[in-house]
């Protein structure tokens, strides 16, 4: 069963810091199946965040159709079971951690009781009890990222859309979060679409990978296929993006791949 389906999507856009050039995102067809952890990889400005915003109807396409759970993303019902962690966000600075989580949690149209009980479980499972009571302005980048993640998770979500989710986490919390999300994926068939620049995170976390470059999807494949064909995610990535060859396998002692392209 497909959770997200994108057909003939076209979006022309300008970047905030580069208003002179026009960029184009064009996706003929992209399907994300239920239960997948789908990693979207690509260099800066390749259109990852734009694609996510298009899926959530935060920005509008020039052409094409996007459905979530079979419902057009234009309808609010399509977001009933979607959790979103943006790359940049903020919560009101005067709120405590749990106040912010609560006020944004009830926007999911769940009862006060349900939200509070779900939040209590999340605090324990993600080991956040020690930062409860702290004001948002006192929180570190990693703690705010935790708050963003809690906000995305609360409300019995079936699809998580995470834009650079592991930014700011220390290695222990990153491992904890990955473990929690993987468990949710296995136990509850939670589908996750996420973007990341950190190839090792993608290698550990996802089970399907898509490469995006200049607004076009270059390749979609399973992690298993990547390992069979390229040895590592890193090799796979550099196969498509390393134009100069400076960082290819021969110059990179950490990689172990043996694809003919790099020998």
């Amino acid at each position, binding site marked *: 069963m497909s959770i997200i389906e994108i057909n003939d999507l076209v979006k022309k856009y300008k970047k905030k810091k580069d208003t002179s050039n026009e960029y184009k995102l064009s996706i003929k067809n992209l399907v994300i199946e239920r239960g997948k952890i789908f990693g979207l990889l690509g260099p800066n400005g390749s259109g990852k965040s734009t694609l996510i*915003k298009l899926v*959530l*109807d*935060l*920005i*509008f396409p020039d052409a094409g159709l996007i459905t979530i759970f079979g419902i057009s993303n234009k309808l*609010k*019902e399509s*977001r*009933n079971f*979607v*959790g*979103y962690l*943006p790359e*940049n*966000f*903020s*919560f*009101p600075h*005067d709120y405590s951690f749990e106040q912010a989580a609560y*006020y*944004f949690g*009830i*926007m*999911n*149209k769940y009862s006060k009781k349900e939200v509070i009980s779900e939040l209590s479980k999340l605090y324990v499972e993600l080991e956040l009890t020690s930062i409860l009571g702290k004001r948002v302005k006192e929180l570190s980048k990693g703690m705010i990222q935790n708050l*963003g993640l809690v*906000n995305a998770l609360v409300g019995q979500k079936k699809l998580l*859309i995470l834009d650079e989710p592991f930014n700011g986490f220390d290695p222990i919390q990153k491992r904890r979060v990955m473990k929690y999300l993987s468990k949710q994926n296995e136990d509850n068939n939670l589908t996750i679409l996420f973007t990341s620049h950190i190839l090792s995170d993608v290698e550990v976390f996802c089970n399907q990978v898509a490469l995006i470059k200049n607004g076009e999807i270059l390749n979609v494949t399973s992690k298993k296929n990547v390992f069979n064909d390229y040895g590592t995610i890193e090799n796979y990535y550099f196969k498509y993006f390393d134009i100069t060859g400076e960082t290819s396998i021969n110059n990179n002692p950490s990689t172990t791949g043996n694809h003919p392209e790099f020998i």
Partner: protein
Amino acid sequence: MMRFIIKENITKTPLILLALLFIFYALMIQFFEGSIEILISVLPTAIILMGTATIVQTFPGIIKHDRISLILSKPISRNEFVVQNLLGILFTLYIYCLFGAVILELSILFKTGQIQTDLFIVFVLCPILLLFIHMLNMVVLLKFNDSAFILFVLLYVFYFSDVLINRNKYLQSAGIDYPTTRYIVSVLHSITPQIQSFQNMLISIIKNHSFDLYLLPSIIISIIPTTLLLFIIANKKEF
């Protein structure tokens, strides 16, 4: 979401400090002549200042601080977002106005021994008028700027320009006959907070015990285009 807007606005207002200030003023007022009139001038201005700050910080505040994507990724439609914001702001303004009405009633009660029930009608109308007149400015200004501070300053530049032009006898006698000046004055007058009208209503009720609903048509006229404009902008804007 409405609860979030109300909490966000109320927590940012030093209500306790204001309450103490006005209670002190209400007690002091008994000893001075013309003191009720001074309070009538001060109170609406204070409410309008706080109201402007509330309105101005709500929409651009949410957009500027990257909260909008967190909110719109929930099962909330953009029209719902606008309606809940408006209701949230309106509710906040009512809290301020109710607070102001109680202070004024207390002062009049201390001074004259009577209660002016008509006053509450003015305070019922005030937030609606204030909200929609300000929102009209906001919608226009938001097209060019998303800083809450600059919006706040701009609104008051408009207000004081209006006051200066309308109260300046030389300008009125010399310039008001020119169509351009007249046009500028009428535009400024229509887009600025109607502090003077609000104060006049209060004075008229207190002195003459009469209540004129002349503001109602302007409220209705401002509600319809403002709300429509907000819906259109909210549905077209990309975040």
